[in-house]
């Protein structure tokens, strides 16, 4: 169970030295209890206290890093059940399943699609993160040779080896020792042997059970064998089971600090129908899976899944921003209207959507106001006449249009006079207050 702030305080040096960045040891202890500080910040803590606190202050979902180097992906470390409470920390890993019964060419093709899966979306590079090699051939030698082939083709891509045969696990694991793959396939029947393979090759161990109770017992046993880095599978395969098991796992970890289930979850989303598989994967993304294994990764499906993952893992406390620039909507010409708004992403999405609805080709100048909406940005002094004037000149908006008319949001009508003073020769027109007034506004202008 988690320690309270006072219990933690008793273990601290009580010197109030402030080296941790907090005014007192008690304040630091409170932050530790809320998991908003790390014990490492205290330089004077005793070894004994470290040990006692280590267990209690460890994150409720153990951090586990899959792979090494640039393409390594962090998992776990989650602290909440609902994204509005606090940012979900480490985005779920997507892995493509590759069966060792496939021909070598087909295997190469599938590895290749993963290598080329990267898509850029609102400034983030998103991709299928990992490969899951599935041992279906019953031949450990074949599994090992496929592992070798994949290691040759995509040496940096993290891998999950799915086999319950310790011999096959060893054949693949030894090729990837020191590369931190997952060896997934420890179960009640083979735990000791699989744990030995994982230990020798320093891999993460995937633990598979039928149900949560068995899963908790298995992870305890695994831990007693000296393995800390695990990913867990409760056996959930249907949408209902995934939602139920993942919720109960996350709840146990976060609310009860129940260590036996405090590990990243691996979910197999396999469906014959690719759209159905995408939706099951979506449930995994929204509901606490750390790895989702897929049968197919068409480009449309990747875009859908990457976007959902991006949305769900957005920090709810940091306003989403879009890039400051002059956006073209439709195919504007030098005579097209020029509108300005702020770079809060929701403002941008709504305004640009309504401009699109108006079917009038338009230049939409989006000004960096640190992600604030129009009224908030104005109140915070970030959307002022002089800053707007400066932006219009520096962004080159004034060279895109031949006219000299700037349309500002109705909420900042008050700026129009000052803005005309700052922007010599420009006429400032006050647009509608709400974005949904834009189509009508544009239509009136046209007629």
């Amino acid at each position, binding site marked *: 169970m988690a320690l309270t702030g006072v219990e933690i305080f008793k273990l601290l040096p009580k010197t109030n030295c402030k080296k941790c960045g907090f005014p007192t040891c008690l304040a630091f202890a409170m932050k530790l209890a809320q998991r908003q500080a790390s014990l490492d910040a205290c330089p004077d803590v005793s070894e004994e206290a470290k040990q006692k606190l280590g267990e209690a202050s460890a994150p409720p979902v153990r951090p586990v890093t899959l792979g090494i180097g640039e393409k390594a992906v962090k998992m776990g470390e989650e602290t909440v059940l*609902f994204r509005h409470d606090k940012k979900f920390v480490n985005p779920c890993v997507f892995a493509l399943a590759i069966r060792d019964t496939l021909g070598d060419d087909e295997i190469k093709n599938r590895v290749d699609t993963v290598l080329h899966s990267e898509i850029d979306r609102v400034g983030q590079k998103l991709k299928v993160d990992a490969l899951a090699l599935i041992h279906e051939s019953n031949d450990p030698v074949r599994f090992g040779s496929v592992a070798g082939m994949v290691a040759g083709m995509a040496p940096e891509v993290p891998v999950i080896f799915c086999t319950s045969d310790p011999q096959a696990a060893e054949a693949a694991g030894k090729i990837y020792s020191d590369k931190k793959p997952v060896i997934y396939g420890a179960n009640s029947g083979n735990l000791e042997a699989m744990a030995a393979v994982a230990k020798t090759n320093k891999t993460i161990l995937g633990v598979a059970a039928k149900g949560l109770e068995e899963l908790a017992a298995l992870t305890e046993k695994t831990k007693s064998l000296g393995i800390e880095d695990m990913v867990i599978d409760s056996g959930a395969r249907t*949408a209902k089971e995934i*939602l139920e098991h993942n919720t109960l796992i996350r709840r146990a970890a976060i609310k009860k600090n129940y260590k036996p289930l405090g590990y990243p979850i691996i979910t197999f989303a396999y469906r014959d129908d690719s*759209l159905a598989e995408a939706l099951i994967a979506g449930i995994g993304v929204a509901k606490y899976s750390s790895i989702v294994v897929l049968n197919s990764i068409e480009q449309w499906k990747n*875009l*859908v899944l990457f976007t*959902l993952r991006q*949305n769900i893992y957005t920090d709810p406390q940091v306003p989403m921003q879009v890039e400051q620039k002059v956006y073209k909507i439709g195919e504007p010409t030098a005579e097209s209207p020029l509108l300005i708004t702020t770079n809060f992403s929701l403002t941008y999405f*709504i305004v640009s*959507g309504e401009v699109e609805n108006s079917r009038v080709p338009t230049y939409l100048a989006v000004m960096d106001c640190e992600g604030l909406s129009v009224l908030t940005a104005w109140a915070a002094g970030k959307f002022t006449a002089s800053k707007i004037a400066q932006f219009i000149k520096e962004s080159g908006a004034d060279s895109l249009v031949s006219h000299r008319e700037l349309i500002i949001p109705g909420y900042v009508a008050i700026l129009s006079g000052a803005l005309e003073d700052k922007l010599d020769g420009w006429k400032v027109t006050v647009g509608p207050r709400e974005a949904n007034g834009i189509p009508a506004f544009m239509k009136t202008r046209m007629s």
Partner: protein
Amino acid sequence: MTFTPSKETYTGKVYPVSVGTAPHEVVFGGENILPFHTFEGSSPNRPLIAHEIQDVPPYDWPEYLQKPFQDVSNDPVSWAKFCQETLGAGAIALRLIGTHPDRENRSPEDAAKTVKEVLSSITIPCIILGSNHTEKDSAVLIAAAEAAKDRNCILGKAQEANYKTIAAAAMANNHKLIAMSELDINLSKQLNILLTQMGFDKERIITDPMSSALGYGLEYTYSVMERIRLAALTQNDATMQQPILADVGLYVWKVKETQASENDVPQWGSLEERGIAWEAMTATAFLLSGAGFLIMRHPKAIEAVGKIIDELI
């Protein structure tokens, strides 16, 4: 440390809402749990998906979305029948988009006529939506509500600027009402309170916290829905216990990802599959965050989401 699952008991409950008339009446809502948490409570009714149709041909929809309806979408009556008979729709959402002053600017009388004709050709429940022009909707929805009297439809959407007239029309003609506010749990709560203060039964309201499309603010809608559901269930907040609507199609089918051809953005893959998946994924996310009632457009997306619901309940 043996494992005992930590089950929640919720103090509140979502109101069940019925739509349509016997024997084709449908009920949604009524659960006393977070979405699909059937391991700790009950969820007696399945989420309802309504097929969207419009009073005028959907020329602004992407071509591959128009195609499934190409033989019927010239006429709302044929379109409604097609949804009921061929697609097996559970409900129809008739959007009177043609009444918008910037579109065909159809009159309230024309809209009422369409409503009457559509209702007389179908037996499944009907949702009647304005064009989201707050002034025009007042007039249009009054006429539509009268034309649909006693058919137990859902009328929408009442917003802060026009809720009084629309709510009065819904009340006078025995309809349910969609109350829409813009992505803010407090505004949503406030509108529900305003409606109940004018005598509108709170159990006849459906909350629309404003939908959005995947990639375009989905996370805001998602979190507002989750917070509304948590307030309803864990705090037993009687002003937040209405079922939630996700008006999915309206937002999904205008974003770039459902419009841009594979030639323009080859890295995005097949346009048709992408668009269908966009709608289905947006809908699935909102089911998980609390929506009990969805309005959607593409038959294949609706079918896929229906199957996911089968798996979740």
